[in-house]
């Protein structure tokens, strides 16, 4: 057991930390958010140059062959800066489908574009009725000669407003919430019959609503088993949650540090507010919550590629619960201990609070994962 980073990992972390410090100040971030895509194409190119977009892919596929730890390091730094680029959507989720389910041809076709920064992906799974149930898929894919035709609607497709390709879940057989009969398809964003409506999310990111009206997909764009993709989807989403947990650690760390700075400088009644013991104890409780969350983000990272799907699910749900609880506490307390200033769009803690809140809603909120974990018999063996 060893919690230390390797030299390469430390270098990755330091490099990214430096880049974010230089390129992700409050004003720059605000400008990225206001740009057409809502994120920085230039920085995305820099990520590509630094190899960040290649990290999880196998060397044989043009990647670097990094593991969950490298993804954790990157996501934490992106979270700390509240970076807007679609790393999760493109590299972790989109890339995850290719890595775990893609054919040799699919990998060869798509990974180079991801790695070079030319191609972005988005995962189109959510439907109006589905809430957090990955098996609740009403969008259909029916056979059409050698290929498939997709009809339906997908929403809250994070990063979907600018993505070049979507990974779309669709039902190829069975009833709406059946666990079999689900396929995962690569769909070109420019496909005929596919329309999208991009929009801003509550935390200033971008997403899209997609409408599929007879969208034709060739057989070569089915990922793996056209009727048995759910285990793959669950695996990729579990990895996505682990990455999201790491991002959340970055967001929380920033909120906690910013709050501490504020407590040390803001004076009221002639004293820094951090000298009041009631405030000190709450800052201490925030620290406890942060360290517990950090531990669980590490645990999720360790278990993200576990071969036992049940053990993986227990770990991932446990981590999402801890992240959700710590994130809520740290976010609410950061705002409260700041007072009015953190209620404004002119201060980073407010944005972080919103991002943290939205992370809790992605891929299952705290209550959802608590119920899932209870159903799996808890996390203590």
């Amino acid at each position: 057991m060893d919690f230390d980073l390797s030299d390469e990992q430390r270098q990755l972390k330091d490099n990214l930390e430096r880049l974010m410090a230089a390129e992700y100040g409050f004003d720059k971030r605000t400008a990225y958010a206001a740009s057409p895509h809502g994120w920085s194409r230039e920085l995305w190119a820099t990520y590509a140059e630094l190899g960040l977009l290649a990290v999880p892919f196998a060397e044989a596929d043009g990647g670097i062959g990094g593991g969950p730890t490298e993804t954790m390091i990157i996501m934490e730094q992106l979270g700390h800066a509240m970076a807007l680029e679609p790393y999760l959507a493109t590299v972790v989720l989109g890339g995850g489908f290719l890595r775990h389910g893609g054919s040799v041809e699919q990998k060869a076709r798509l990974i180079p574009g991801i790695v070079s920064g030319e191609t972005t992906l988005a995962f189109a799974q959510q439907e109006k009725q589905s809430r957090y149930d990955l098996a609740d898929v009403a969008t259909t894919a029916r056979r059409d000669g050698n290929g498939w035709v997709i009809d339906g609607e997908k929403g809250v497709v994070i990063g979907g407003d600018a993505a070049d390709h979507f990974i779309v879940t669709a039902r190829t057989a069975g009833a709406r919430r059946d666990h079999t009969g689900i396929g995962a398809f690569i769909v070109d964003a420019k496909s005929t019959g596919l329309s999208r409506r991009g929009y801003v999310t509550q935390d200033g990111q971008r997403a899209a609503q997609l409408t599929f009206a007879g969208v034709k997909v060739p057989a070569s764009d089915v990922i793996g088993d056209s009727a048995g993709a759910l285990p793959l989807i669950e695996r990729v989403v579990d990895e996505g949650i682990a990455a999201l947990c790491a991002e959340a650690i970055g967001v929380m760390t920033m909120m906690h540090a910013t709050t501490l700075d504020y407590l040390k400088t803001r004076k009221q009644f002639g004293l820094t507010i951090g000298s009041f013991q009631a405030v000190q104890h709450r800052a201490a409780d925030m620290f406890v919550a942060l360290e517990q969350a950090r531990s669980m983000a590490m645990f999720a990272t360790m278990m993200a590629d576990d071969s036992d799907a049940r053990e993986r699910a227990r770990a991932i749900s446990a981590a999402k619960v801890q992240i959700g609880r710590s994130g809520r506490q740290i976010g609410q307390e950061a705002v409260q201990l700041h007072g009015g200033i953190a209620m404004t769009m002119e201060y980073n803690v407010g944005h972080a609070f919103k991002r943290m809140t939205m992370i809790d809603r992605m891929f299952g909120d705290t209550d959802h994962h608590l119920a899932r974990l209870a159903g799996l018999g808890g996390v203590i063996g």
Partner: protein
Amino acid sequence: MDLRFSPEEIAFRDEVRHFFATQIPAAIRNKTIEGRKFEKSDIVTAHKIMYARGWATPNWPKEWGGTGWTPIQQYIFMEELQQSGSPQPLQFNVQMCGPVLIQFASEAQKKRFLPRMASLDDWWCQGFSEPGAGSDLASLKTTAKRDGDTYVVNGQKTWTTLGQYADWIFCLVRTDLAAKKQEGISFLLIDMKTPGITVRPIQTIDGGREVNEVFFDDVRVPVENLVGQENKGWDYAKFLLGNERVGIARVGVSKERIRRIRQLAALERDGDRPIIENPRFAEKLAAVEVELKALEMTQLRVVAAERNRGTGKPDPASSVLKIKGSEIQQATTELLMDIMGPYSIPMADDDMDGSNELPIAPDYAGGIAPAYFNWRKISIYGGTNEIQRNIIAKAVLGL
């Protein structure tokens, strides 16, 4: 001891309830229920309807247009108002500045300001907080320097809610720079059209632009606009701040929210059952309801005790109302988030009045997250909950 409303009180409640249901336009009240924001015109319309009925200033003395209601009646009125979804009579006029003028202003000032204040012909806003003076309000730095018949005001106020609509602002200003910090403050009324005043909106994390910074650059204010004595403004400010008993807990607001939660939780489904049928959700909701019912009783105890204590003396136990009231209001926004789940993520369009079915989510989802963000303010404003705990510890518990 009889903890039920008397028949007279019940009749009064029914009368008030009927008034709100029939006299305040549903289009206005529904904005509350649907989580949308009031326009200026909504507030003015509702205020003037209440004013026409003689109900805009229930807490004022009868001679200045008050109703003569008992504290319990005033409580009932406010709770019914809140449950109806109607805007309140503008609180800067009715709850804050009006009572200060009634208590401390000259007759001439009363005659000049109170009638238009009561009718909302003048819209007032508050100039207390400053960037460096939050919980430590008395450390404010805006100065008013005497120059003949005028004060020359320089400085900056912040968190001025709805200042963009205001005709007048009541301000705390420093008139004696040498005095100890509470002792050099005066209470000044300033016409917002005076040259040198700049209002800059602050966008809050819910996307709203309700609060403002107000800058004063050599703003000349007639000396006759000073309330009471020079350098005694802190006393008036304390009176004002302690004067928020009735309604601070906003029990009616939370009751309305609870009903909305039940409605939406019956509408939204998780899998094949409505969310309200999820025992965990139903129990979380019930737990908040218990706290709210307890708060209602606590508030009634404070209101009823006013009869024994005498009007106008703030009950330090009202800090309990602030703490619990804010916690419950915030809890209702979290329950709404729980209902919406992933559909709370998309941002609503700026214009929420037209038909703008949100991407994938139902129309009403758009306001849920902003309300959660926005209501974090409730434990901050009006004396943070930390300040309220200090008050309880010192004034109630003697620590």
